């Protein structure tokens, strides 16, 4: 059965998942699947849509997350879009195993960014920094769209 392994690079961010024991007060991610999806989207953005380096180191702290946990509407949109764009067709989308590996690798890339941000801002305003990051990304995208 397909499952997503949590990249080891995301370990410092785990306290911001609400399911984690010893979570932070401003934990914003409902589940590990939400964190992975967010990080994968960020990683995809950072790589400008290019395929990520494969073989990201997996975390031993968290068990692999079953593919079913990524069934939320928004998560599916994110994953399908990434799979579609990265594969240029339905080839990857139709292969859950490949999709899982790609999501893992992208999440590892995004994770690096998240760790950097966390290091810079600390625990208390991490969520605010992520908010800013999202707002800026939205603005940039909207500006690009307007240019096109």
């Amino acid at each position, binding site marked *: 059965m397909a499952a997503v392994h949590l990249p080891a690079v995301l370990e410092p961010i785990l306290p911001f998942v609400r399911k984690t024991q010893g979570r932070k007060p401003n934990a*914003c991610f409902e589940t590990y699947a939400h964190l992975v999806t967010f990080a994968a989207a*960020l990683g995809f953005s950072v790589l400008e*849509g290019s395929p990520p380096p494969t073989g990201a180191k997996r975390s031993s702290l968290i068990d692999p997350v079953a593919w079913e946990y990524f069934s939320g509407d928004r998560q599916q949109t994110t994953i399908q879009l990434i799979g*579609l764009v990265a594969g240029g067709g339905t080839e990857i989308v139709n292969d859950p195993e490949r999709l899982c590996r790609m999501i893992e690798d992208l999440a590892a890339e995004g994770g690096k960014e998240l760790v950097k941000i966390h290091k810079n801002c600390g625990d208390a305003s991490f969520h605010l920094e992520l908010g800013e990051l*999202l707002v800026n990304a*939205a603005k940039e995208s909207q500006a*690009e769209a307007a240019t096109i």
Partner: protein
Amino acid sequence: MLIRKITLKHFLTLYGEQTIQFPETSGHSTAVILGPNNSGKSSFVKALQFLLHARLPGCNEDTAWLLINNRHREETGVQAEITASVTATFAFGGNELTIRRTVRSRRTGATEDSFGDAEITFSYLQSTETNSKFVADSDHTIQRKISVLCPDTLLEAFFFSGEPLDGKLLKGVQQVRESLEEYLSIRQWRDAAEAARELRTHYAGEKQKLAQKHRELDTILRDEANLQTRIDEKRRLKTQTDATLIDMREALEEKQAAILGIANQNQMRADVEERDRLNLQLKTHEQSHENAKGEICEAVGRSAGYPFLLRFAGKAQKILSRLQEENVLPADLSSGFVNRVVKMKKCICKRDHTDETRAAWHEYLEKALRADVGTKLATLSARVDPNAPNCLQRNVAEIAAQIIDARDRAEADIVARHNLEGSIAVLTQRIQESPIEELRRLEIDRRKLDVSVKETGKRIETLEDELKSLVATLKKKKEERAKMKISPDVERRVRELERYQTMADGLADFIDQAIEALRRQFHKNLQEAMTEMYDEHVTDQTIALINHTTLLPTIMQNGRRVTNLGGGQSQLLGLGYITAVARLRNALHEGMSQLGIRLGVVGEQAFVLDCPFSGMEQHYIEAAVKGLCSAAKQTVFLLHGSQWLAARKLLEPVTKTAWGVHMHAPSAVIEKLKPEDRTYPFRGKDTVLASVSRAGGEAIYSELEPLKGA
């Protein structure tokens, strides 16, 4: 034990109430009671035996009514109660004791032996300041006392030598010796020593018990004292706490009054209210700020990274369009539809199915519908379409707007909070500079005081509970002490017990030493008395030697034992024995007195001798009288006519009391009497003591009367 007074009422031959009073003298007292044979002189001896030890001469308990005078019995009607009694007052050791023994019966028929079972009672005279009365000796205290003063076994040997004291006396001597042997026996003395030791142990035990009780009492008293101290301490503490509470309440009232006074100033109240209002607003903004940050947090979590992907939406749309062109999309057809189309004979384009058409449909199924991807891509297609209502672009805009809005609100809150904090600081400054600060301090003090008052109240309640508990415990201790019933004069009691213990020790030692000394002393006394009474008065050159072992006399003549003794010799032996015993008892008494043991003044004893001179030669009688009068303090001689004539010359000068027993009998009996048995001379006057019965009939009875010349 000397006789002071004796009263016989209807006892044996003596009719009516007959009393003899004996005078109190410091020296020897001699009394004579004279009367014919069978007149009732012996009734005195029997009366004393009955009175002292309940001896019943010639009858048993059922027939004790026989002790009641026969004339009196004859005079008693059927069903009438009938009594006889002996009452005597004895003197011993400076005390007097009056006792009475009564025999009571009821006549049940007309015949002379129709009397019911007799009842014998013993009582003693109890005197108070106001009156005297006879009370029953129910606990036998008096009877026991008499047994000590006048032992039953030695009664006849010491006190009452019955008649006749002639040839039978040798037998009597043997009885006397046996009685004395018993009295002097080792076993009895050992028993006495054992009793003394038991007494000592008893006193030691008593002393120990008393000491134990004393210790317990000490403990209780100490506990009581401790409890009392604690109670006093608690009471003092409670009083102090009560006073503190009163002070606190007063202070509290003062604070409250001060608070009321200050709080009435309006400006200060307005400032406080304004500060409270601003503080409220500050809290609202703080909450709002937190909420806004929470919203950002939620928005980030729910974003699924959409804003990062928006830039790829166009590319995705192009891919999806291509897929649509390839008829891979829209995937709004179900796999069931595809399967039905393939199974049909003709394709949906109305042409017959070929292998190619069927392969095309299967390829479509593989590309578009595998793993339900088709449906999801269809959804994605709708999301990337900028014109779709739920497009990605719109979602991203919403997310960004939500975050921006929350962020703006959070920032606004920060500004507002900053402003508010400034205003609050200004107000606080103003309040602190105003009396309101004092009000605040007062309020804090008041609250503290309020808490202290409550705590103090609780402490007082606790103290009261403790006090109640302590008082209850103290009461219990006092009850325990009361139950112990220890005399407060414990020390005196202990000293007393120690004294008794010492006395018991002394008695035991004395007895141990006396056992051997007694026998030697008795032998010595006996030998001296026999020498005095016998050797110096016999005329046949015989001497009496007392055997060391048997304490029996042996009469020796010229170194040979004489076995046939004359009557006078025998009587002298008997009297010698009695004299020796009297002296020995005196010696014993003295020893015991030195120890503080006063069993009775045994040296003050009465000898009641019933016709002791019968058949004696004159010089023997003289020796007997001399010996008896020197050995005993009181001697009562019961003598008939011929003996009185023989002893009169010796006795008359020393006699203090002289009574006659007047016999009333039928004329036939009277006529048979010798003249000396009828008429008794005393100091120059004659008294007739025999006359024909006034009552008539065969009854013989007697009455006492003082001798003329007495």
